[in-house]
């Protein structure tokens, strides 16, 4: 599904402040995998996600999704395969639009944003049913401005928005970093459900060692712009919290 081949990323190349964010990374991810990525700050994990999303382009190497080379494709054209949940809930939603309008845009992520009014009773019902599964009572707040909701509520909705339209890959960059423990749990459980029930491939960056152990069926560790550990589902099962903490020491 995802093939990352010899990807490198160098910032300020040839200058005094040159930074090598990624170095010759090779990675293949199958459809339906839930890959958890850990690593210290500056290890290259966010850089890799940003290159998948199209926020920045690699210095060398190539990225393929379903055998389509997307290496130099602009970000908005990658939305037909990829959706994103940002670290900051504010990035993933438009605060001055209503919840329903945000969902409408999400429902058209891979489609045409045409000159028809797409928010009708059917659409409202579809969104309300989906939002009700969160158990947060947000189905009664569809006409409220997104900006009036809490960070946890917005992040949970962002995750749902990510799978409103057909998507193959869900990228999540520390999605619970700004949330309280209860909201974090809701978001992580929802991600797990999306992966298991819809078969969507997920790449999750987290600094929570507990989440890294609890969720996902593959664990990657980045360090110095390289993948230094790649654990399969079985290997991950036998891993203890102390083992993970030791990796960082």
């Amino acid at each position, binding site marked *: 599904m995802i093939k990352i081949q010899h990807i490198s990323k160098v910032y300020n190349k040839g200058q005094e402040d040159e930074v090598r964010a990624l170095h010759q990374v090779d990675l293949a991810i199958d459809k339906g995998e839930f890959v958890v990525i850990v690593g210290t700050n500056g290890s290259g994990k966010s850089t890799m996600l940003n290159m998948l999303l199209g926020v920045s382009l690699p210095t060398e190497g190539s990225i393929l999704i379903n055998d389509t080379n997307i290496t130099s494709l602009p970000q*908005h054209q990658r*939305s037909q395969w990829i959706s994103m949940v940002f670290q900051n809930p504010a990035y993933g939603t438009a605060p001055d639009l209503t919840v329903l309008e945000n969902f409408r845009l999400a429902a058209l992520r891979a489609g045409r944003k045409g000159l028809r009014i797409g928010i009708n009773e059917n659409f409202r019902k579809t969104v309300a049913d989906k939002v009700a599964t969160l158990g947060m009572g947000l189905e009664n707040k569809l006409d409220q401005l997104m900006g009036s909701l809490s960070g946890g509520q917005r992040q949970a909705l962002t995750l749902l928005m990510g799978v409103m339209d057909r998507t193959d890959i869900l990228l999540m960059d520390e999605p619970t970093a700004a949330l309280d423990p209860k909201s974090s749990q809701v978001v992580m459980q929802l991600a797990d459900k999306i992966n298991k029930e819809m078969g969507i491939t997920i790449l999750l960056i987290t600094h929570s060692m507990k989440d890294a152990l609890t969720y996902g069926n593959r664990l990657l560790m980045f360090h110095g712009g390289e993948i230094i550990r790649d654990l399969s589902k079985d290997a991950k099962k036998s891993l203890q919290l102390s083992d993970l903490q030791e990796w960082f020491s």
Partner: protein
Amino acid sequence: MGVFYLTALQMALCLGPMAMGIFITMKVFNIPDITTDGSYTLGAVVTAVLLSANVPLWIVLPLSILCGALAGTITGFIHTKLGIDALLSGILVMTALYSVNLIILGRSNIPLIGTASIFDLLSLPFAGSLNALLIAALFVLVLLFLIIYLLRTDFGIAMRATGNNPVMTKAMGVNNDRIKIIGLAMANGLTATSGFLVAQYQGFADINMGIGIVITGLGSVLIADAIRLWTGIRKIGRQIMLVLFGCMIFQAVLAFTLSVGVDPNLLKMVTALFVLTIVAIPKLSKTFSKQ
């Protein structure tokens, strides 16, 4: 006295499309677009030249809009594709448009005497002397309906989201650059429509008629914004209606200024002071409420 206010209302209706255009750039896209001064004159100039050549109104109107939209497209292109600041892009296009308008006009102004006019197109039986006012109202209402419809469509939602959170819209498959260019084209097309109406209402087009007109639009949007904050109006359709209302208040204030005998030479200064007051009120009221 009443004539002052009727004229003000008529002018407000003629300038309404421009105010709606400024709402789109300023409030929807968060872009300060100064192209307005040039595209407003462009709309008037194209109208005057074509009407003088006896070109029918149904051709003049779309051509005026198209010319304004083209000016907006150029501003949008310079801003998004060349990475130039939006304010500077607008200033550059506005400056260039002065020469373009002068070339099209061929001289500093053209009077429109004995030419066709949209205000003579229909003679509403019950309107009497208010005929022009009602035609302008009808025209602006149709435009208002179209803009409200557009902003509620899927495309309109993408437009509004782009101004609100461009990081999010990119991830949602929106081509931010393209949608900004379309938005600027739309806004300046609306501005040119005001030029089209005002040239016919005043009976002439002048090369300097657009100088400072952006302040009128800006003032209308700011008045609307102040009312929106007081009333808590959130729906996009109502916000656009408020802009039209803001335009009417703005023109009424100017009419009042003239009616109490203020020197017409001071009108631009009064306009600027009025806008300054609107902008400053929220800040000043916060400062005083803290004390």
